[in-house]
């Protein structure tokens, strides 16, 4: 078994889900090659040299100093042609969703995305709003796969030492069909959810914008940060810096106390690593209860004010 792990980084800082992808590749076993692309590739490869993998390829080409879908496709294609991996692995990040299908179509090999685990040669993926699991097989000699966030743990990475070498690619400027401006943030971040110990999270179930005050009151009593699910952010009730989920932050606090969060998969991937999940929802069938340690069925608008008083009294 030979695998190629495509590494994601921002200005030389390794993406958490790339560590998880290495961890997953180690679980699968065999020879692992990591691929780092871009002008900051060197600094990423030094972190990778501490992992038990075979080697890291560094591609630093003037046409692809930072992420570019056309450049990534061409480079990955050339690396795959050179080392013939059985599987090409990434984390299921927004960036992977951008370039992996391009590689799939260019090489005519399947892209099986958002895998939660491997089981007897089947790739397990959640389907139908994550209510069911599908076991997917590949009949191709090669496959592209991406792992859902937290499917493998970065803490399980086997340490070791590995070498890196530069890999020469042949790129033509005519193959670059898109140009990216610099990434930017819409509003300055007012919170750091990823390092918060306790989080009170608000979902659509709070019904009205003014009800968010009870979430902030509860958070104050607990000394917690307030986060939100996407519908709450889309409604403009809370800024996007407070969003948890696939398009927001990924958190793993000691306590994730959710108020009226239904538990759509896009939210769950951002918080399922929390140590304790206490969910309050009036719908006893809410998917969030599937992953909760404590499932409180009831109206949060009645429970939370009483909970605040009880916590203040105690």
């Amino acid at each position, binding site marked *: 078994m030979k695998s190629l792990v495509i590494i994601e980084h921002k200005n030389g800082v390794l993406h958490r889900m790339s560590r998880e992808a290495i961890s997953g590749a180690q679980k699968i076993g065999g020879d692992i090659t990591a691929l780092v692309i871009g002008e900051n590739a060197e600094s990423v490869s030094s972190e990778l040299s501490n992992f038990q993998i075979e080697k890291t390829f560094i591609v630093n080409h003037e046409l692809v100093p930072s992420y570019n879908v056309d450049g990534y496709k061409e480079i990955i294609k050339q690396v795959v042609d050179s080392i013939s991996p059985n599987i090409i692995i990434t984390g299921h990040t927004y960036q992977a969703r951008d370039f992996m*299908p391009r590689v*799939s*179509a260019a090489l005519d090999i399947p892209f099986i995305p958002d895998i939660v685990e491997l089981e007897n040669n089947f790739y397990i993926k959640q389907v139908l709003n994550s209510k069911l699991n599908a076991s997917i097989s590949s009949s191709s000699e090669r496959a592209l796969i991406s792992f859902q966030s937290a499917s493998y743990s970065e803490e399980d990475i086997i340490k070791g030492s590995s070498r890196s070498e530069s890999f020469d690619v042949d790129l033509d400027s005519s193959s670059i*069909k898109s140009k*990216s401006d610099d990434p930017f*943030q819409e509003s300055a971040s007012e919170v750091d959810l990823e390092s918060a110990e306790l989080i009170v999270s608000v979902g659509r179930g709070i019904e009205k914008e003014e009800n968010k005050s009870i979430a902030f009151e509860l958070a104050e009593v607990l000394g917690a940060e307030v986060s939100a699910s996407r519908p709450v952010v889309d409604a403009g009730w809370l800024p996007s810096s407070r969003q948890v989920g696939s398009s927001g932050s990924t958190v793993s606090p000691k306590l994730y106390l959710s108020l009226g969060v239904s538990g759509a998969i896009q939210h769950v991937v951002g918080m399922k690593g929390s140590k304790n999940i*206490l969910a309050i929802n009036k719908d006893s069938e809410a998917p969030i209860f599937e992953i909760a340690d404590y499932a409180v069925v009831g109206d949060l608008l009645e429970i939370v004010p009483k909970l605040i008083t009880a*916590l203040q009294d105690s």
Partner: protein
Amino acid sequence: MKIAVLVKQVVGSESSLEISSDNKWIQESNATFVMNPPDSYAIEEAMNIKEKIGEGEVVIVSMGDDRVQKVIREALSKGADRGIHIQTDGTAYIDPLNTAKNIVSALGDENFDLILSGLQSDDTGMGQTGVLVGELLNMSTATLAIETDIDLEKIRVKRELESGWFQWVTLESPASISIQSGINQPRYPSLKGIMGAKKKEIKVIPLSLYETKQQVEKLSIPQKSKETEIIDTDIDSSVKRIVEILKSEVKVF
């Protein structure tokens, strides 16, 4: 500007989900079907671009058995100009590369300037068809567009990155772009639109099967990995129990 929108019909989120007897999919006869919710944003964006430019054509492309004509008609009633239906018998699983190759041959030599798609489908969630088609047609591609700035001179999209970051990307024409949900407010069809849609053309093309590269072998109900304590009593007892949990089990104080 000629715009194709890739639209899928999917099992509705409220539908019953009973695994079929061969375990490979769900019992479709008991299911209800809707337009894939992310696709309605792609249709709306296509309509907005056509209206802004003041000329052009919006063509809806869908694949599946005859029931998918319902979602094509729904899009036509919102103002799209015509439809293309790639007809299957609805029995076999069709993998993303097969889907993309069929769409490519259905679009044929029509030379679309733009292909729009929803970011992913709510059933299998493969999230790749629009990009696969773009690559096969040698187009530029971008995903998760949360804003577009498109006219006859330029194609620019604001891509959503993670953790509240964004990025503007300028694309060469022609381009295939996947649209992030929430980019716009999808319109409702007007009565006039519904009446007019009945007269619009839907071209039916038979499916061609290419080599299948990935296959759904079985569906299963996810195993719960942890034990959940269910607290479903009167409010005062629930509050008492929550306080106890926070203090002595989670130890937040």
